[in-house]
């Protein structure tokens, strides 16, 4: 089959795989086998597959370039597990996903399979679809004529709407030292931090600790690097350090908060979590990412980063090729050449340098080196079959291992507002000026030698603590011959028909960059957006610096002058499930519930959410349910669960003074045992809330504010308390949740209350309207208040929340009928009782709703006072609250505009705020706010709602019992 490279083999021994635990999986329909310890990528390679993906735009065949998070090509549709543990990832990175039993993998861009893609024909038209071609092409007659078909071809994988991600917990940590990366520098830093007596957290994005020590030769403190790493981790864990693997630092935010995505890798996403780590100090030891080389057809399957080829060989026991060309301009890739030769492969090195260093020779042993030669092009129709060197030599090969130098992983340094600096001698962006609280160590700082990394790490982990050991006490490496890691970036002169890929994931070629420069997108940020270079999910980890080098060479500038685009979080893609965390479904915006919820359910209540509280809307299912509840309140007796009604206690010698200031209506003149309705204003003079205040004692009040405004009212009281009062002389205490409240309303209400509490003290002399008496209910306290929010005689009874059900049942037993929120709203509308935030808005002042008296009479200070006298507050023709008696039987929609014709033009003079068909009156009624409404009583007005016309008469905002006689019925 075309996807098979004969040269790739699994070695018989070595590596981190468990040959005793084979794993079956499928890729593009083919049944394949790997081992526990494989990643998807290493298993695909071991099966001889080279073409595993199709490219984003041209649908060119692509293979595996990298080993980890930098991978631009090998992105697959992944399914594993069944039932609730099933997991679907529409764009999983094959290089970081561990292989699991039963995985079903598919190429994402291919129409068909990666090997046979029906859209591969697109590649032949590449000349006509350069960068930004669609901005220029798909504009006639409109982009939208093309959008659907183009969008169908774009994107990265397809979401399965039936797939469900598990809940990813969020975890929090506070540490003295967070070490990012567990290579030599990171381990040395963690050791030094622990030795200095600090709390340490070490995170590693790979599944195993050790970083480069797992694949590169090196001896530390007399032991092989990998063994030293294992030993060091044990030491760290024993010493109390937190060590997390498969954990990627995705972002660094203000004040050293690091977001860490830890992958559980289990089916269903189990074990994933998102950490927020606040660290006093951070050591960034994230290593460096190798860059590919620029030559024609450098995207062919079979082209792989040299460091990745080494990692697959040493860590996964996969020799990714049999005939290997290693192309480099520095020493690091020679270790691969030597290792591949030792593993039985034919190896040839093409080194851009004229002379090869002794260090390199020592690593590679006896391999052929073409000194002073680069690769001109990769040969092979769809996969690498060989190379052509700049000298013209052609070499057969099935693996082309490329090393174009290293880019230190300085992303977190840049997130911390550090400014990267181009180091010409190193050929890399390295950290510039230090940022407080963060140290960069080892390869991430451009210090590639093992001994340097250890020394860096020890120094960085030591910090400035007094108990810290000297750097000389840290781990030491046997000094090997110094290796040259710096590699100048060679930008080839591409022939007209050659394509040299810079960004493999977004299919950006050197000609696209030249085109952008020709069209004057020469600033890096412009180049990036015009060509999409570096904008794919790999965020240009292998392509950004090469792209800058190409731009620099085209514009005749240096890379330092060209600059670098901004590094933005996240460092690596993060599933939405991890960001959302547990805030899913019901937990996203949890509703508050009534203590008697189950009792209401037993009464066939239909629930709805009102201001974040789940409450009975009505009871039963009949079409007349709401209207009959209304009639019961007017003619018999109802019980309404008013438990969420605010019960905010204001206590202390200055309580009356605080309430006088916060309320527009004076409260200090209220007598103990009595209640008063009042408004609260914002400092802008706008109605903030209304409610009834009960004075329990000279120094103790209870504010009953609107149910959904309780936190806001507590906040308003606290704001003025802390701003203007001696906080030792007045307290605000929200007791809303402590009390359940049942409101008994209707002509039969007194009989119900008497049945529960006995007759004594219930007469209108001892308990008149707007008075309260205390009582006992089931050996506990109770408060009986005569207040009415439906305009009938009514009693509000509050008992401790645990007795909610008992009180409800007692009222039902005595004959009260359940009343839901919908009926209550209609009853209130009949009485013209406003709902703040419904019948008022951000412009409504008290004199707009018929409550201008305090404004006219009060001279003492109160919240919002001065705002009631601005030019705006005093201007004529303000919108005022009125009632509207609508003609006909239809209900006028809320929001309908009252329109008048002036000078031949229609103008809105106000709008409907509440409306209903009144079961009591048998007519359509509404509340509205109309310009000069109070002076227009009796006038007829026309309402327009989206073309529907209604006519009504302006009346006083009270449709029922204007004299208030029903309160005493």
């Amino acid at each position, binding site marked *: 089959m075309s996807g098979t490279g004969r040269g790739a083999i699994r070695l018989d021994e070595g590596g981190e795989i468990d040959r005793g635990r084979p794993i079956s999986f499928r890729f593009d329909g083919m049944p394949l086998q790997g081992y526990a310890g494989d990643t998807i990528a290493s298993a695909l390679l071991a099966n001889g597959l080279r073409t595993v993906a199709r490219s984003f735009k041209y649908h060119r065949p692509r293979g595996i370039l990298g080993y980890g998070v930098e991978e631009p090509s090998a992105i697959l549709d992944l399914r594993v597990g069944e039932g609730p543990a099933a997991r679907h990832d529409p764009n999983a990175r094959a290089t970081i996903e561990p292989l699991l039993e039963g995985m079903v993998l598919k190429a994402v861009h291919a129409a068909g399979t990666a090997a046979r893609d029906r859209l591969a024909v697109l590649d032949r038209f590449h000349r006509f679809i350069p960068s930004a071609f669609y901005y220029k092409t798909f504009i006639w007659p409109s982009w939208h004529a093309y959008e659907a078909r183009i969008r169908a071809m774009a994107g990265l994988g397809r979401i399965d709407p039936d797939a469900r991600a598990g809940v990813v917990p969020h975890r929090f940590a506070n540490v003295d030292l967070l070490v990012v990366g567990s290579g030599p520098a990171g381990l040395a830093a963690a050791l030094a931090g622990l030795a200095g007596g600090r709390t340490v957290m070490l995170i590693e994005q790979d599944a195993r600790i050790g970083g480069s020590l797992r694949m590169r030769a090196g001896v530390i403190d007399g032991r092989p690097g990998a063994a030293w790493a294992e030993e060091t981790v044990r030491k760290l864990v024993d010493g109390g350090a937190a060590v997390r693997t498969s954990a990627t630092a995705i972002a660094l*935010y*203000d*004040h050293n*908060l690091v977001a860490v995505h830890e992958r559980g890798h289990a089916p269903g996403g189990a074990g994933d979590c998102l950490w*927020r780590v*606040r660290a006093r100090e951070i050591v960034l030891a994230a290593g460096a990412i190798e860059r590919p080389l620029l030559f024609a057809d450098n995207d062919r399957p079979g082209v792989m980063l040299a460091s990745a080829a080494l990692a697959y060989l040493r860590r996964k026991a996969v020799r990714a090729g049999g005939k290997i060309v290693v192309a480099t301009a520095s020493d690091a890739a020679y270790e691969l050449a030597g290792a591949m030769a030792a593993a039985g492969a034919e190896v040839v090195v093409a080194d851009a340098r004229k002379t090869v260093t002794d260090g390199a020779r020592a690593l590679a042993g006896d391999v052929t080196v073409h000194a002073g030669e680069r690769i001109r092009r990769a040969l092979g129709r769809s996969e690498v079959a060989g190379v052509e060197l700049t000298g013209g030599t052609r070499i057969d090969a099935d693996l082309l291992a490329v090393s174009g130098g290293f880019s230190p992983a300085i992303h977190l340094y840049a997130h911390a507002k550090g400014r990267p600096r181009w180091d010409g001698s190193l050929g890399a962006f390295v950290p510039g000026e230090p940022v407080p609280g963060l140290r960069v160590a080892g390869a991430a700082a451009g210090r590639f030698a093992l001994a340097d990394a250890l020394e860096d790490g020890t120094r960085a982990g030591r910090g400035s603590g007094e108990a810290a050991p000297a750097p000389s006490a840290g781990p030491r490496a046997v000094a090997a011959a110094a290796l040259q890691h710096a590699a100048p970036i060679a930008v080839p002169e591409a022939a007209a028909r050659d394509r040299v890929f810079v960004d493999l994931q977004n299919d950006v070629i050197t000609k696209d960059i030249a085109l952008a420069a020709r069209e004057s997108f020469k600033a890096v940020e412009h180049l990036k957006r015009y060509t999409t270079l570096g904008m794919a999910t790999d965020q240009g980890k292998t392509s950004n610096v090469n792209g800058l080098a190409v731009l620099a060479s085209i514009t005749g500038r240096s890379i330092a002058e060209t600059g670098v685009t901004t590094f933005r979080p996240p460092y690596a893609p993060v599933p939405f499930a991890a960001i959302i965390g547990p805030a899913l479904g019901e937990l996203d915006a949890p509703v508050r519930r009534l203590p008697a919820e189950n009792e209401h359910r037993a009464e066939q209540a239909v629930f709805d959410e009102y201001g974040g509280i789940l409450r009975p809307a009505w009871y039963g299912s009949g079409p007349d349910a709401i209207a009959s509840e209304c009639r019961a309140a007017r003619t018999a007796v109802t019980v309404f669960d008013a438990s969420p009604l605010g019960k905010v206690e204001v206590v202390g010698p200055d309580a009356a003074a605080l309430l006088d200031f916060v309320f527009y209506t004076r409260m200090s003149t209220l007598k103990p045992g009595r209640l008063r309705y009042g408004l609260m204003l914002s*400092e*802008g003079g706008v109605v903030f809330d209304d409610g009834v205040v009960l004075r329990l004692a000279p120094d103790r009040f209870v504010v009953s504010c609107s149910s959904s405004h309780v936190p806001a009212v507590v*906040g308003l009281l*606290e*704001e003025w308390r*802390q*701003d*203007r009062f001696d*906080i030792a002389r007045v307290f605000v205490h929200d007791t809303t949740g402590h009390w359940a409240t049942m409101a008994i309303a209707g002509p039969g209400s007194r009989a119900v209350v008497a049945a529960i509490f006995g007759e004594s003290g219930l007469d209108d002399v001892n308990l008149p309207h707007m008075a309260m008496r205390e009582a006992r209910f089931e050996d506990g306290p109770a408060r009986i208040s005569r207040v009415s929010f439906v305009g009938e005689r009514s009693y509000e009874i509050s008992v401790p929340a645990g007795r909610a059900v008992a009180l409800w049942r007692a009222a039902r037993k005595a004959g009260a009928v359940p009343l839901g929120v919908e009926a209550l709203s209609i009853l209130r509308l009949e009485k013209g009782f406003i709902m703040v935030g419904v019948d008022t808005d951000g412009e409504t002042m008290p004199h707009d709703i018929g409550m201008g008296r305090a404004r006219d009479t009060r*001279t003492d*200070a109160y919240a919002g*006072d*001065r*705002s009631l006298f*601005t*030019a705006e507050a005093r201007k004529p023709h303000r919108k005022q609250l009125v009632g509207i008696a609508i003609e006909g039987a239809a209900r006028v929609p809320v929001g309908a505009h009252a329109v008048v014709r002036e000078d031949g033009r229609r103008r809105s003079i106000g709008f409907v705020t509440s409306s209903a068909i009144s079961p009591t009156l048998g007519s359509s009624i509404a509340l509205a706010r109309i310009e000069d409404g109070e002076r227009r009583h009796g006038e007829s007005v026309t309402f327009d709602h989206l073309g529907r016309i209604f006519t009504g008469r302006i009346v006083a905002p009270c449709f029922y019992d204007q004299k208030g006689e029903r309160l005493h019925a």
Partner: protein
Amino acid sequence: MQSFPCPYCGPRDETEFLYQTDAGRTRPARGVSDADWSRYRFFRRNAKGAAAELWLHAAGCGRYIVIERDTLTHAVIASKGATP
């Protein structure tokens, strides 16, 4: 996310706090002009650099506190209770 030192609770995440206004503003008396009342209501320093701000530790102790900080670098210089 910034970390703010609450004088009552210790260092806490920024999300526990609600920004209120500039520190040190005084509510004018009723007799003030429309213009001065508007200045009190709506005008803020919006400083680039050193700033003294009033914050509410809403998800903590509920106290109003004054934080001196640099709005450019996000360095926190000092914090204290807004009420004695």
